[in-house]
Each structure stands twice: as C-alpha cells, then as structure tokens.
C-alpha cells in the first residue's frame, strides 16, 4: 500500500476553527480601535474574546492531529 495515511477529522476541525477564529479575532481587534455601536452587547466586544476562544480551540485540535499525522500514528 503506497497510499498516504489519511488525515484525521480532528485536523480538519482544527483547521476550520483556527482560520475562522483568526478572522473573528482580527475583527475583534479592529473593533477595539473602531468600536461598533450597532449591536446590543457591543461594549463587551464579543468578537475579540469569542475569536480567541475559537482560535485556541482550533489549535488544540490542529497541532496534536498534525503531529500524529507526521509521526504516522
């Protein structure tokens, strides 16, 4: 069997959450300097902290699954 080992689903979950978390975090940073005022909880800047939560959750899936894939586990 010369076929490469399949990446696990957790890699794809991690990649998706990391990319989207990064975008949401960037929006949150943007709102720190240019506060948005249209939404009801704008003062909490949910984009910033939720983006960071997503980003770290994504990395928690992404890094171990990539390491496992590289080591052939």
């Amino acid at each position, binding site marked *: 069997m010369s*076929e490469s080992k*399949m*990446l696990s*689903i957790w890699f*794809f*979950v991690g*990649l*998706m*959450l990391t*990319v*989207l978390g990064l*975008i*949401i975090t960037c*929006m*949150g940073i943007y*709102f720190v300097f240019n506060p*948005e005022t*249209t*939404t*009801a*909880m*704008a003062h*909490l800047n*949910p*984009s910033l902290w*939720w*983006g960071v*939560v*997503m980003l770290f*959750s994504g990395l928690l899936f992404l890094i171990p699954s990539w390491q496992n894939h590289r080591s052939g586990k």
Partner: protein
Amino acid sequence: MEQMILQISWVDWLIIAIYFLFVLGIGLYLKKYTKTGEDFFIAGRKNSAWVAGLAFLSANMGALELLGMTGNTVKYGMFTAHFYWVGAIPAMLFLAIYMMPFYYSSRIHSIPGYLKLRFDEKTRVLNAIAFAVMTLLMSGINLYAMALVLRTFLGWDWNVSMWVSALTVAAYVTLGGLLSAIFTEIVQFFLIWFGLFLVTILGIIDIGGWSEIFNRLPDSMGALWSTSTDAANNGMQVTWPGIILGLGFVLSFGYWTTDFLVVQRAFSSKDLRSARMTPIIASFFKMALPFIVIFAGLVAWVLTKDPNAHFSLLQENGVVNYDSALPMLIARYYPEGLIGLGVTALLAGFMAGQAGNISAFNTVWTYDIYKSVINKGATDRHYVWMGRAATVVGILLSLVTAYWAKSAPSIMDYTQAIFSWVNAPLFATMLLGMFVVWITPNGAFWGFLAGMISSFSMFLAVKFNWISAGVLTLSKEASDMSANFWRAWWAWLICLVVTVVVSLVTKPKPREELIGLVKGLTTIELEKNLPFYKKPEVMALLAILLFVLLNVYFW
C-alpha cells in the same frame, strides 16, 4: 419582498466562502480513500466512537431543527426541551445497549438489510421504498425551507441559494461517500456550537443572568413537567401520557433506533464497542443542545415582553413568525464577522442535514432496491458507481421536491407527520423482530404495512376534518403536536397487534436462520476485559443519571 434582517459584509462573505471551499476540499481529499463499496457506503467501518458519535448527532441536528425548536420555545417554553431529553435520551441508550449488538454483529449495510435477514425480501423492499421516499421528501422540503430562510433573513435569491448548496452537497458526497458526509457533519457540529452558543451567552448577560430569566417566566413557560397534568395548563396542550407514550416512547424510539439516517453513522464504527458507544456519546451532546436552542428561545421570549429591549419577532401578515427568533437574536447581538459565523453555522446545518439524507438514500437505493431487486450479481465497482449516480439523482429529485414545495407551501404541514408514517410502525416491527423469536415474515410485512396505512389515514382524517384530533388524543384540547404524538402511538400499536396476530397463524423462519439476529437465540461477545469506566453500560448509566438530574432540576 426582501427584508434583509441580517446585513452581510465582505468579511461575512469571506467566512461563508471559506466554508464552501473547505467542504469541497474535504470531498476532493477523501476521494482517493473511497474505492470500495465498504468505503463509499459505510465509511470503511473504521471510525472511532467519538467520530461516529458526533456524526450520529449531527445528522439529526439540522438548521431547520435549530430554528424551529428555538421558535417552539418562544411559543411553548421549556416544554420544547422534551424533544431533547425524554424524546431522545432513553431511545438512544436503548439503541446502544440492546439493539446495536444485533445490528452491528450482523454486518448489514442498512436497516432494510436487517429486515431481509430477520424476515424476508418483501419486508426489506417495503421499508426501503418507504425510507427512500421519506428521505427524498424530507431532503426536498429542507432544501425549500433553507432557501426560504436565506431569502427572508438575508435577501438571497431563492434559486441561487438552493442550487449552490444542493450542488455542493452533491459534489462532496459523490466524491467521498459516507466518509465525506461524516467529516462535514463533524465540522458542522463544531460550527453550530461556536456559531450559535454565543447567542445564548450574550442573551443571558443581556437579561441579567440565568435566574433572572426564570424569574420573568410564568409557570406555563418555565416548567418542564409540573404543568403537564392538564393540557390546558401548558401551551403545547399535551399531558404527560402524550409526552411519554407518543414522544418519549414511539416517536423517539421509532426515530433513534430505526431511522437509517442516524443509525448508519454507528454502522461506520470500527468495532462493536465503538458502535455501542456511538449513541451514548451522542446522548451527552443531545442533552447539552437545549443550552443553545431552548435558552436562546427563552431569552427571545423574555426580550419580546420587555418594552425597553426593543426586540420583536418577525411578523408576516399579522402572524408572528416564531422561527425568526434565532436570526433576530443574531441580528441583535452579532457584529460583522460573527454574523458570517452564525450564517455559516446555519448553512452548515442545512447542508450536513442534506448530506445525511442523501448518503442514507444512496445506500438504501443501491443495496436494498437496486442490488436486491434490479441487478443482483454486479461487481462492487459497479455498485459504487451506482451509489454515486444515486447521489446525483437523489439531489436532483430533492430539487424537484423543493420546487414542488415552493409551488404548494402547504406540504410543509406534512413534515412533522412524515416520521410517524414510517418510523413509528417500523419501531414495532423491529422491537418484535429483535426480541420475539416466533414473529413471522408475513406478520412483520402485514403489520408494518397496516401501521403505515393507519398512520397516514389518521393524518388525512384529522387534516380534512373527518374526525377531530381529540379522538386521537383522548382529550378536549389537541394541538397539532399533541395529535402527532398520539397518532404515532396508535400506528405503533396497530402495527404491533397486526404483526402478532398474523404471526400466530403464519409460518416462522427456521430458528437456525435467526441466530445472531434475535435475542434469546444469540450469544454476542460483548467487551469483557475492559476497565469498568470504558464499558458502554457504565457510560449509559452516567447518561441516565444526568438525564434524571436535568428533568428534576427543570421540573
């Protein structure tokens, strides 16, 4: 009429585009790992319990359900949580502990496949046809409903949103089969949690805390069981026997233990323990889902009653659109970027539901209709080709159904009822088949047929006012929901009685043909050398404990 409740910016478009590219990329990547029939239809039977468990739940967690259940909570309050707790958990655990060993050990590809082994070809084909029609009908109606939601809240063109999502699903399921569907379902699971749970968190903070929400709710909205003794005391107009017999027993067990759409995910597990753990893992997340949908609905209810909140649901021709609750909350709390995430979560929910329907359809069509009736002796390669062709044709038929629904929106009324036409009687057939040795093939066939016909007839009789719904529900007040619960119960009972009576006068299959399929004739090697905390029975006990605690807490 384009209302555009949610304004989409370029960053929201970017997030939506990334999601579409991502799922197509997954399909392309998985194609090279999808070669045999076992790969395409049953994902190679290689999945862990966690993968199969999350896919099991995600296949059921469509966006329509999220929107509808949030809307139902605004309408009926905590009673809606019954769909997630008593209406799911006992059935999921029963499947894991008692039924999965028979399903998994018989190495079948589908639920109709079990009927063939336990009974005969005609019962299998009857169930396969009923399931295929039900799946395509649901798939098309979901597609129509998705386009309707996207048009109402985002102003998107009806045809474009329907065709783009349908073709995307067709592409990745055709490429990677069940494996693609499972991968995207799991991505969808995380997108829904990250995309929609924030609505509840912000809503609770906005109102002033968890207890403040319950302080503002009247008993009829905040109670789970305490108002169920009299149908007049709760908005759902249903009493506890209706909830327990109709929803908790027949509809729930009928759906969770026999609907191939969800059970197929457990069949993809790598071993029997993983297959048994699949519904158990899913049950914990099912119990957690009300923390998105139910609490978002309660937040929406509280806000609509608070004049200072300046929050209202959408109204169409003076009628409140309860399903608008979740999008209206997104519009209230989410700035640009997060709106893209919320919309992507809903889109992912729609598309994963679509993929679930189509991957179940292509398997039942290929194995239980095409291979069983039309072309028995073809090669594995040919059946994989047929599975791919069935995916494309299934999507096209879904589109036809969606256009049909568009021209006759009243067919939406049938969606709630469809499950009780097929799944409620099927549950009686399965229960008897799996646990009673002397049930005969003819008993199963005629019982199942009688159950389906009676359920459909009861639906028509109420719909066209030939009888009042109260005749079915045995009460004066009867909502559509209550009639649905009770119709399922009667259909189940009719199937059970007919199956037993016909079995008493017809010839059973030889006992030796039933080994491995019926309890009492079968010794299945369950996991004996596992540490106790890894045993499915122990995890199921934990799930039951949590289930009881939730019901008592919200009593």
